[in-house]
């Protein structure tokens, strides 16, 4: 169905989120960690298997992780792509694979009616344990990825995002895009994918997340069945540490667009960061709370300079980016960047007011139940807790940790962690129209 709607008056900035629900946890016989939440209201289940096999594991072969993931359901066991797709779709199941910098995951949503469930689960099991990486499938998917890489180059937002990651992370594996770049993807071979799969898609590097209408016993059997045949293997080495940039920089990329896209930031926070809650609550006030954030107010509400203006932390295994962004008409870029920087610097030097902090806490704590009000959201959060090995009571203590933040702790955390002398700025847009006006 084609909604044909526009104009969510702002793009809801994705927030890191937490849920509270009874998470049961155990290991499979091969040592994979399993996280299970029983949710009986609907006759369905969401199942994910997540590996530490994201694009940060690409080495110099940028795009390897993504293409490996993309090939999994194009041929496995005795089935080709059509047969695999039909096996899922004939029982109404939704299956997908995907990668981020940190993770490679397989996700299934299925009904729990046994005949349907068993067929979907068996299909996922074969995809997970017996992918074929056939040459014909490889060449086709590679070409599709190359097209997607090419298409990035027509979007000023994508170009800015690529340049920004590159600037923040230099030689660190977080620097390159998940899908890779033209030259590296071109050089990939089907055997590279098979090798990558063999090394990283192993039981000791897997976590399993199950949320749905299953008993604990059924969940145990499900996890065992799913991973049967996957070698134990080894957990990969930890990722290298992120080096902070040593000085601020500004880079402009000329592009024939009507708007200039602006990204400002530096490497920010990681999942087990002791400053996490202070940064999270502070950012909520600065640019994370949609229609009521300081950035939104300064850039959009007071001056009408942009449709969206926001900031975010993206905590990962290692510090993910802290990003402040907006898009504005080319000729007012200078003004918009000034407002952005002034708002950021002002916040870092002064911190939030008590009224702002109180309001933020009310919003975060009052809205807490909405973070996990669907099985889908819950499964996403449980996967995060599992993959990043966060305490199982993470959800239960979340509100309290938010409550404990103060003006002093937030200001202190921002001063230490967002050094405005080191900010990296990327602009992508058309300066010739800026001059003409």
């Amino acid at each position, binding site marked *: 169905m084609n*909604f044909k709607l526009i104009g969510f008056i702002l793009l809801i900035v994705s927030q890191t989120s937490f849920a509270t629900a009874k998470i049961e946890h155990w290991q499979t016989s091969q040592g994979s960690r399993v996280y299970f939440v029983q949710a009986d209201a609907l006759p369905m289940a969401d199942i994910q298997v997540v590996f530490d096999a994201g694009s940060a594991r690409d080495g110099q072969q940028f795009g390897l992780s993504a293409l490996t993931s993309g090939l999994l359901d194009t041929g496995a066991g005795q089935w080709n792509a059509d047969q695999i797709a039909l096996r*899922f779709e004939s029982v109404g199941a939704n299956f997908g694979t995907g990668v981020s910098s940190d993770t490679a995951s397989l996700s299934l949503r299925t*009904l729990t009616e046994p005949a349907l469930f068993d067929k979907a689960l068996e299909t996922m099991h074969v995809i997970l344990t017996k992918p074929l990486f056939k040459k014909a499938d490889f060449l086709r998917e590679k070409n599709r990825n190359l097209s997607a890489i090419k298409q990035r180059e027509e979007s000023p937002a994508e170009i800015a995002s690529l340049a920004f990651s590159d600037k923040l992370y230099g030689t660190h594996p977080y620097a390159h895009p998940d899908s890779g770049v033209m030259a590296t993807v071109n050089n990939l071979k089907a055997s590279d994918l098979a090798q990558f799969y063999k090394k990283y898609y192993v039981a000791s590097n897997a976590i399993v997340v199950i949320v749905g209408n299953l008993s604990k016993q059924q969940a145990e059997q499900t996890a065992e069945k799913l991973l049967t045949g996957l070698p134990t293997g080894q957990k990969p080495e930890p990722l290298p540490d992120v080096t902070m940039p040593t000085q*601020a920089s500004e880079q402009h990329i000329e592009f024939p667009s009507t708007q200039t896209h602006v990204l400002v930031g530096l490497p920010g926070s990681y999942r087990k960061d002791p400053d996490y809650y202070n940064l999270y609550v502070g950012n909520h006030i600065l640019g994370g709370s*949609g229609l009521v954030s300081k950035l939104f107010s300064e850039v959009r509400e007071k001056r009408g300079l942009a449709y969206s203006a926001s900031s975010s932390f993206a905590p990962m295994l290692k510090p993910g980016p802290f990003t402040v962004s907006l898009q504005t008409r080319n000729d007012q870029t200078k003004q918009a960047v000034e407002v952005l920087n002034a708002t950021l610097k002002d916040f870092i030097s002064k911190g939030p007011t008590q009224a702002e902090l109180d309001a933020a806490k009310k919003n975060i704590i009052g809205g807490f139940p909405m973070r996990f009000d669907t099985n889908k959201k819950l499964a996403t959060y449980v996967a995060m807790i599992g993959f990043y090995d966060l305490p199982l009571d993470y959800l239960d203590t979340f509100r309290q940790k938010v409550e404990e933040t103060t003006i002093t702790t937030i200001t202190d955390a921002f001063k230490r962690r967002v050094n405005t002398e080191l900010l990296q700025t990327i602009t992508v847009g058309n300066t010739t129209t800026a001059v003409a006006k």
Partner: protein
Amino acid sequence: MNARLLCAAMLCLPILSANAEPKVTEHVLANGLKVLVKEDHRSPVVVSQVWYKVGSSYEPGGITGISHMLEHMMFKGTDKHAVGEFSRIIAENGGDENAFTGQDYTAYFQTMAADKLEVSMELEADRMRNLHLLPEELKKELQVVTEERRMRTEDNPQGKMQEHFNAMAYSNSPYKHPVIGWPADIANYTVPDLQEWYQRWYAPNNATLVVVGDVKAEDVFALSEKYFAPLKTSEIKPLKPQTEIEQLGIRRITVKVPAKLPSIVMGYKVPVLKTAEKEWEAYALEVLAGVLDGGSSARLSSGLVRGKQIAVAAGAGYGLASRLPDLFELEATPAEGKTLLQMETALKAEVAKLQNSLISEEELSRIKAQVLASAVYERDSNFYQAMQLGMLETVGLGWQKADEYVGKVNQVTAAQVQEVAIKYLIEDHLNIAYLEPQAINKTTTAKKGGA
């Protein structure tokens, strides 16, 4: 790349719900406001949506996009609340909120902890009739909407192509113009324009309140009486039909924009549930969309992306719940080395196949299984359920259509799918747009620093 494709038909199909366990309860206030409540007690949360029967297809020339502009202005204060206070109060009560505008509707929503529903009801009732439209706020918000248009359309090759495509495909239907409006219209809205639009359409007798979540229907009805019952009605004059004239031959357009990949959109003029001669025709078109694009096993992925490898991406889409006759669209990006003409030929061959032979039992039962499963999955989201009810009610189909959906799709036969393919996917009613990429000159400069 997938993001730009039309919603894969089947993924979006579950917009119309199944015989979901929780029942919808309806209550109509004396002033005409219709209140729909669906109780769902899985989680202590509630979503509340106010739907107005107004959208871009209601707009005359010269003020296109004004519904969307008004949506933005609805956050700018009332007699009781200053600019921005609406959002501040919702946020302090733990709520999330936003709004959206489509061709046939404008809607506002809040998601809150269930015990905060009253906060959102009071605020929505207030801004239904007491909005302040201030010149200085309009001036700034015009800039914001202009930036929004730059982002969605001016700098987005696919967005631009779609806009030109719609403008060509329709002769006199108001679906001809973009939801966000034409640039010259956006630049010239005045406060009186907005005031008139607001007075005309924002009234209890032109709205539906939909509440889904951990609430009791009778409590919601009591709250709606408390806050909305005092509101005055407007005289809602029926819309002129603006029935699209018959298209008398294929139409083509080329859109040349800075881009990297070519693409094609093809759209056949088809009826929707509201306008179909026989209701089953709309459901048959829905199934037809599923045959082409109801997942990775469907014909476009299987045949064109994998089989012939002529496309790197291909999709089909049909919106059966539009207020006016719509387009059945096919969209594709050719693989490297393949031309738009080859792509067009391949897509037309898929259409011909649907006209010349029956779809298989396997395909039909796959689609029915997907529809059945989706009816369960969609109950995972209160928001989605509220969206279905609000949309069906607002386009004039009635929310009850949600309950009929699975049954109606189940009755569709292979012969009916062939029949609608022959009757409606005809060359004389076809519209085609080609995106022809123009070179992008990119240069990089380090202004200062460098790490």
